């Protein structure tokens, strides 16, 4: 970890001495490893599909950061809400969007979770509690506060987890949202996926204060966790979701992680802003999947054939997702104007291009 020089603040909930590893049963460990392998293979498949033109536009891969998707989202309840930025494929899957629906969205097809209207950056599924996929850095943060507001307004006990990249904390939207969340004690966990770089700009080059200091001014507790350690992450979020559900108010989590690929598909893995050596050292030493795999093997909870079977299954699921996406039709051209408005008013024209229809148009 480039930034992980300071001691990781272990969550109080971590229980070291239970059978398995840190209180996780063999089945739970297998499930987490399976999840992360699925995310990794999904992103690799997306990378491959992008290279042959099946996926267009901007596409941001989460490879290297899978521990956070599994560790932060899997402990949540189905009716908890997740909102995030645009590096969100794996988070969407973690919250319950199927690889098929996610991949079909990347392909811009009708069976995508956003019907092909959103693309890589705008995955949505309200039934899964996945509230998007947002493309403007920091734009999802006030929205996350608003989701928390709605939970509080209705007296519900869900929590909202609002992810952002490290660069987003320099947006006004972040500061305004943290302040309001503290004032109104909203049930929102703000999670910085701190991979050290906003696109190609190291956080330390554009910020004098440490990440963890960013929420203190608003009276919101800050927590730093090692996002490459899925078990630590899982335990932390399991406990934190419970605390916020119980009225602990907003929280700020600095989850340290590392992006193994470029910012987007057009950005090389290493180059002008980070060295090949830096990337390689993280890939070798900080891969959340190999970290868990090695621990499970050392503890005798995973065999090589089991791992291979697990990986084969993940690859097969992603092959299937890609095949499904490829076979899914393009959206019907007749639907171009669908869903611009939820309510087409009985009077007046909503569209003036002569094509949109609606009302008397």
């Amino acid at each position, binding site marked *: 970890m480039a930034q992980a020089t300071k001691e990781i603040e272990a969550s109080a909930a971590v229980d070291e001495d239970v059978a398995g590893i840190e209180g996780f049963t063999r089945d739970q460990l297998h499930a987490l490893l399976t999840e992360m392998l699925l995310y990794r293979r999904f992103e690799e498949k997306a990378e491959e599909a992008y290279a042959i033109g099946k996926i267009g536009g901007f596409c941001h891969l989460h490879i290297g950061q899978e521990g956070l998707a599994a560790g932060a989202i899997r402990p949540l309840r189905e009716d908890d809400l997740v909102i995030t930025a645009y590096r969100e494929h794996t988070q969407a899957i973690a919250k319950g969007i199927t690889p098929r629906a996610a991949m079909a969205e990347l392909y811009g097809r009708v069976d995508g979770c956003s019907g092909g209207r959103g693309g890589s950056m705008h995955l949505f599924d309200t039934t899964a509690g996945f509230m998007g996929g947002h493309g403007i850095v920091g734009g999802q943060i006030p929205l996350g506060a608003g989701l928390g507001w709605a939970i509080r307004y209705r007296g519900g006990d869900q929590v909202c987890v609002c992810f952002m990249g490290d660069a987003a904390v320099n947006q006004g939207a972040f500061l305004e*949202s943290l302040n309001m969340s503290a004032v109104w004690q909203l049930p929102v966990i703000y999670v910085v996926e701190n991979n050290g770089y906003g696109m190609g700009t190291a956080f330390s080059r554009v910020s004098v204060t440490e990440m963890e200091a960013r929420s203190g001014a608003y009276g919101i507790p800050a927590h730093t966790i090692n996002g490459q350690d899925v078990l630590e992450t899982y335990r932390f979020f399991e406990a934190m979701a419970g605390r916020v559900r119980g009225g602990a108010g907003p929280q700020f989590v600095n989850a340290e992680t590392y992006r193994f690929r470029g910012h987007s598909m057009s950005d090389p893995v290493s180059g002008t802003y980070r060295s090949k050596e830096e990337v390689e050292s993280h890939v070798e030493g900080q891969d959340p999947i190999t970290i868990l795999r090695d621990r499970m093997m050392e503890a005798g909870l995973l065999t090589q054939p089991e791992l291979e079977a697990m990986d084969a299954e993940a690859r097969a699921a992603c092959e299937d997702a890609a095949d499904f996406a490829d076979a899914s039709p393009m959206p019907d051209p007749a639907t171009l104007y669908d869903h611009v408005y939820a*309510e087409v*008013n009985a009077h007046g024209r909503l569209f003036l291009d002569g094509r949109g229809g609606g009302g008397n148009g």
Partner: protein
Amino acid sequence: MAELTYRDALNAAMCQEMDRDDSVFLMGEEVAEYDGAYKVSRGMLARYGDRRVVDSPISELGFAGLCVGAAMAGLRPICEFMTFNFSLLALDQVINSAAKMLYMSNGQIPVPIVFRGPTGAALQLSAQHSQACETYYVHAPGMKLVTPATPADAKGLLAAAIRDDDPVAVMEGELLYNVRGEVPDGEYVIPLGVADLKRSGDDVSIVTHGKMVHVALQAATMLSREGIEADVLDLRSIRPLDVDAILETVARTNRVVYLEEGWPFAGVGAQIVSLIQEEAFDDLDAPVVRVTQADVPMPYAKNLEQLAKPGAKGVVDACKRVLYLPAGAAG
């Protein structure tokens, strides 16, 4: 019918909707303890409590976005901007989030939110506090916009906006808040997309919206003294737009002036002119003329401000121009 001020009519609409639907709440700067910067929400904190009438920090981007997020979760926020000038800070949330959410999510996430507050110029508030913001909002597909000019329209259109399942901007006017007028008692809703002929006359059509309706009526009175009778068509709703009503008045008078408070470049009037020439070209006896704010930031000095604002005299001259009469003749 009761005679109410425009501000009290807005208040009545919010109370009417908050009484019938618990998911409606009001958030904005000074809306609660201060009773609203322009006293539009007077008494609402006492009536509904601080769960539903909420003072926000001065964080337009933040609280607008929070309201959009709340709407994504099914609430129906009324997000008050002290003026729409300040809402320029919030435009990312208005355009990128509110207007586009339903489309990006393939219909999964409607955003039933109202953004409301005064737009346009008042008196000597200078450049940053005097601008008509209609175009910024109405430009984006997904947004709706209404501009009530009278107390009755204020009540009916705001109520309709709150009930609408899409983001609706309700643009008011600081100089309208004290205007008095008859307002229907009880539940009152005016459907979006229905223009209102505020005055009838067959010689020329003054099409306009919002605060400028009053300037148009003043101009129509001046014209009438010269024997020229003008239609004053108040669009009331810019998006959806009552195209039928526009085409009807054009067909009847064959001469049109569009009056608006905003700048001419890519303004609302530009859109209306485009529509008329596309769909009613053969009905026109003269090119459509627009009367707008001068194409400059609003100056402070009284005389310059007067020059920059569209006024009744300018409308009268524009009407004469489309009637091919000399400006100022028989004035």
